[in-house]
């Protein structure tokens, strides 16, 4: 066991970093697209159903197939990492868009009406009332999406994007469980760490701390 770690330790570290980079960039992208989309839907509720329907469908595409679909696309298909990030972003969208939309929709209408009655502009209502009150919900969506992305990112190795999936695929091919675990255990730990960390932030946001921000 120590021999195995000595032999593969630096590779584990390297692939873990790669894994982090893939999921991290995908999450940033997904948040940058998903949160504004969710907000936009609350302003144009007629689009909520179709848009949520589409992101929902994306999520039903088997991940291996989605990686395959992206392969022939210009620019994205040029590099394996781009394919992986695009696919992970697409998967992460659903929980983020859905929770942003539902979180803002769920804000007490009385509070919103008071915000309006006091003379807040719609931008102020969003920044000072809706987003802070929906923050816990939005973060819960980000957390779900992150855990999901950490798992799916292992499949990115199938298109040569690297990450901890490398070990898993290699282990399966050579019937070496130690290699499979060398990929699976760090991936699981990453997922748990992301879940715990974001869960902690979410909790802090949900019960608003006294005092000014």
């Amino acid at each position: 066991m120590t021999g195995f770690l000595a032999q593969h330790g630096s590779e584990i570290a390297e692939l873990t970093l790669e894994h982090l980079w893939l999921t991290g960039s995908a999450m940033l992208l997904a948040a940058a697209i998903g949160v504004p989309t969710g907000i936009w839907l609350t302003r144009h509720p007629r689009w909520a159903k179709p848009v949520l329907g589409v992101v929902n469908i994306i999520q039903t595409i088997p991940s291996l197939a989605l990686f395959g679909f992206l392969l022939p696309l210009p620019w994205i298909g040029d590099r394996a990492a781009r394919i992986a990030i695009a696919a992970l972003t697409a998967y992460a969208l659903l929980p983020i868009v859905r929770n942003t939309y539902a979180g803002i929709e769920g804000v007490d209408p009385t509070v919103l009406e008071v915000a309006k009655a006091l003379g807040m502009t719609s931008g102020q209502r969003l920044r000072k009332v809706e987003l802070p009150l929906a923050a816990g919900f939005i973060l819960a969506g980000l957390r779900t999406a992150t855990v999901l992305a950490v798992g799916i990112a292992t499949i990115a190795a199938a298109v040569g994007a690297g990450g901890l999936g490398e070990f898993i695929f290699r282990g399966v091919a050579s019937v070496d469980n130690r290699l499979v675990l060398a990929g699976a255990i760090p991936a699981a730990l990453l997922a748990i760490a992301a879940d715990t960390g974001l869960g902690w932030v979410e909790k802090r946001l949900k019960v608003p701390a006294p005092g000014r921000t």
Partner: protein
Amino acid sequence: MTGSTQASAIAFDQVGLTTPDGRVILDHVHLQIPTGSTTALLGRSGSGKTTLLRTVNRLVEPTAGRVLVDAKPTTDWDPILLRRSIGYVIQETGLFPHFDAERNIGAVLEIEGRPRQEIAERARQLFTQVGLDYATFARRLPYQLSGGQRQRVGLARALAAEPKLLLMDEPFGALDPLTRAEMQDMLRELLRRLNKTVLLVTHDLDEALYLASHIVLLEGGKVVANLPADEFTGSQIPAVQSYVRAVHRGTLQENR
């Protein structure tokens, strides 16, 4: 603009509201609210009193007639500026749950972009005016306050930008009788000193008599009486008499 509306802080000019499915909520409401007066809009649930109140700051748009604030039709006002110049208090849930008491009180000043220092000073003044200790309550969130304290914060928030006009929608509706009486005393005292025009929605005759100089009785979206408060209970108008009788009956049963 007619001369008669000019002396009024608010004028309702044949205001009507009919829902898309044909229900009449407000029916030719024609009223002048004199500057500096406290006018109670009295009526049972569904009489249209809250809706009428909400046409003033354009939370509701009438389908007929017009509402004038400072002799200017509300539709000619920028709705954001109109609302900022009018204080608004509602029952119970109106505070921002994620703002502490001080930030709630300063909310209107904050959205107007006033300097922090000014907001803080004004907030301290208001804490005193509504009878709350700054050091104890400034950092509390609404859920850490009692019903009466929340209402005090709500009132302070409405007063923060020194509006000439104050709209109050059943402000004490959710309070127990003792707290309510306390709040009414505080409000009466405050209004005596501040010289505001107040429009107060209530279904409580005693509250109307205690706080208001004028009482407007609404029924089915129509104004059925518009009287000085001291002439209200003695009025011969049948609708007024039956409202007063209904309240008296309750009092007699309680005393038995």
